[in-house]
């Protein structure tokens, strides 16, 4: 059954007791959230959500039903894709019907927190952490689930990315005919393997070039082959599906063969892929591509990505890169003569910085790099072996200060958030 956004739904009215507990949780949480913002710790929304989940652990189960939900997951690009899809939906049905977790708080409590403050909004566009997808599918019965990609990220926490894929696959097969229409990146073997168990899949050829994380068939473990940019298991048990939507340069071709120039304000081929998935998801929600694209073009700096910040006299563009696949996208976008690279290994960054050696920093040779953040010295040794001229300035605020020409800054998650604050963007 395709989602029909022309008739507004009314989110379930919560039982009185649940409502009362949520109200208490929200009140307590708002105070804590404000306090944490003052103290400069984390997003207020996440703190509020964490407290809410403690006081009302079934909050998500109560807050999801009754809405038309689109959930967006994957290792990279889920924040941007969520922003693009939410903007597309808002352009079609009006902003006042749409709730989204725009700040990127994508765990149970982040989602619950966003929903709790928008009881009347019947369309929810939810960025969803890979680990939370099964619960959102089970509890919220989303109309649409966008599965972008799988790559190595935070291996200190997720030992095998395949187990995340297995979680998606099992959730989709359990949901059966009630399950979401899955918008799946056909270029990603693990996404394909997980999405296959859904009742309906819309395959998108995203023209993705990153293949380092997918060498074995998730079904049988045989080495995948790649011919003419298409992957296949030689045993034939898993092959790249025929896509109905595909990326073609800066445009997206829909199932009817119509080319849509996206004209996005967010840069890079990677975001054209994200835009293609958002466009296909919007179409599945019954939204006309023209309206969808009009909305998507309003997105310039989702949750601070690609935003321009000012640090004293320095003008800096902020790029986020969380893992080798993300760095492979971000580094070619940098154009400044001096590039600032900020590395941390807090929990949100992954405690292990081995991934530095999977990033081709060699491409920065000939430019000057400022290595900063708590793990700047690890980067320094990486740059030494890459023979890239650089200086080490561990303090973030010092590293971004005093540049006369504009600089590009690429940062892992924690320093990225600090830079947004330092630059007055949050």
């Amino acid at each position, binding site marked *: 059954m395709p989602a029909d956004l022309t008739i507004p739904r009314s989110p379930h009215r919560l039982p009185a007791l649940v409502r009362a507990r949520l109200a208490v949780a929200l009140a307590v949480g708002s105070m804590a959230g404000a306090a944490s913002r003052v103290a400069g710790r984390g997003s207020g929304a996440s703190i509020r959500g964490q407290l809410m989940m403690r006081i009302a652990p079934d909050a998500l189960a109560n807050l999801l039903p009754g809405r038309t939900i689109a959930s967006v997951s994957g290792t990279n690009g889920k924040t941007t894709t969520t922003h693009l899809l939410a903007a597309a939906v808002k352009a079609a049905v009006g902003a006042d019907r749409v709730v989204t977790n725009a700040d990127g708080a994508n765990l149970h409590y982040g989602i619950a927190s966003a929903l709790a403050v928008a009881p009347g909004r019947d369309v929810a566009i939810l960025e969803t952490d890979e680990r939370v997808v099964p619960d959102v599918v089970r509890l919220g019965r989303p109309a649409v689930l966008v599965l972008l990609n799988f790559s190595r990220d935070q291996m200190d926490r997720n030992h095998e990315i395949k187990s995340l894929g297995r979680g998606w696959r099992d959730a989709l097969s359990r949901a059966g005919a009630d399950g979401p229409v899955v918008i799946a990146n056909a270029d990603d073997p693990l996404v394909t393997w997980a999405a296959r168990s859904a009742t309906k899949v819309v395959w998108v050829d995203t023209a993705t070039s990153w293949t380092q994380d997918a060498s074995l068939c998730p079904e049988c473990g045989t*080495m995948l082959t790649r011919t003419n940019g298409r992957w296949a298991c030689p045993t034939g048990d898993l092959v790249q599906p025929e896509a109905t939507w595909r990326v073609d340069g800066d445009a997206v071709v829909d199932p009817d063969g119509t080319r849509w120039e996206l004209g996005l304000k967010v840069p890079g081929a990677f975001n054209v892929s994200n835009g293609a998935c958002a466009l296909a998801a919007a179409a599945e929600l019954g939204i006309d591509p023209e309206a969808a694209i009009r909305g998507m073009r309003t997105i310039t700096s989702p949750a601070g990505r690609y935003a321009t910040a000012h640090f004293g006299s320095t003008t800096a563009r902020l790029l986020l890169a969380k893992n080798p696949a993300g760095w492979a996208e971000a580094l070619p976008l940098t154009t400044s003569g001096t590039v600032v690279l900020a590395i941390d290994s807090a929990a949100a960054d992954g405690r292990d910085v081995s991934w530095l050696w999977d990033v081709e920093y060699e491409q920065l040779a000939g430019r000057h790099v400022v290595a900063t953040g708590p793990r700047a010295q690890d980067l*320094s040794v990486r740059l030494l072996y890459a023979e890239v001229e650089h200086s080490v300035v561990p303090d973030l605020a010092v590293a971004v200060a005093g540049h006369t020409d504009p600089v590009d800054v690429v940062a892992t998650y924690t320093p990225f958030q600090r830079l947004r604050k330092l630059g007055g963007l949050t």
Partner: protein
Amino acid sequence: MSPVTIVLVYQSLLGIYGDRGNATVLSKRLTWRGIDARVVIVEPGEELPADGQVYLLGGGEDLAQTTAVRELTKDGNLFRALDAGAAVLAVCAGYQICGTTFTIGERDEVVPGLGILDVETRRGDVRAVGEILYRWTKPDGTTSLVTGFENHGGFTRLGADARPLGVVEKGIGNGYDHSEGAQQGKVVGTYPHGPVLARNPELADHVLELALGYSLDPLPRPAIDVLRRQRIAAVSGQPERPER
């Protein structure tokens, strides 16, 4: 003279923790000394060169381990190279597959390894994830600290033909006792990736010296000394290796 050949074995299977960095480190440490070096990346299905001087095996998931063992056994050139005097550095999952047996999957299925190290790996009672520090005994009997990051679920027991590389000060290592890693002839296995040679230039030069058969001149690089001091200081707050 032909360049020293460093073979990165099955990068897409055994390279999920930046272990390709070990190849970068080894080749640069040679070229910076004026010794010609090249890195050859071999993927499964391609033939391994039999005339390399150093072979590198890195970390990977269960399925990748069994695939690598099967392909390397079928190929045979790793064994020929060892017979010809090559050195092997095997890290984490790569270390485990060098042994006689190891376990995979939820049901701990015991599968045969390459048998080039007299070690056996079984699922441990904890997963070892975190910074590791161990005291490595060098060939001349002196010791040096090795710093890295370990992330493995298997514990490794050494047989009579292998000797431990060092003694764990922080972290888990081989897991059953205080030992870490193993060396047997010119095969060196160790748990920390990181990649391990980036933080431990003496270990890098040890692998090169095993392969070349002569000792190398010192190669001072202050940036690496700073990093080592930082990482060793960072684990000093960590508890000593727990008794089990």
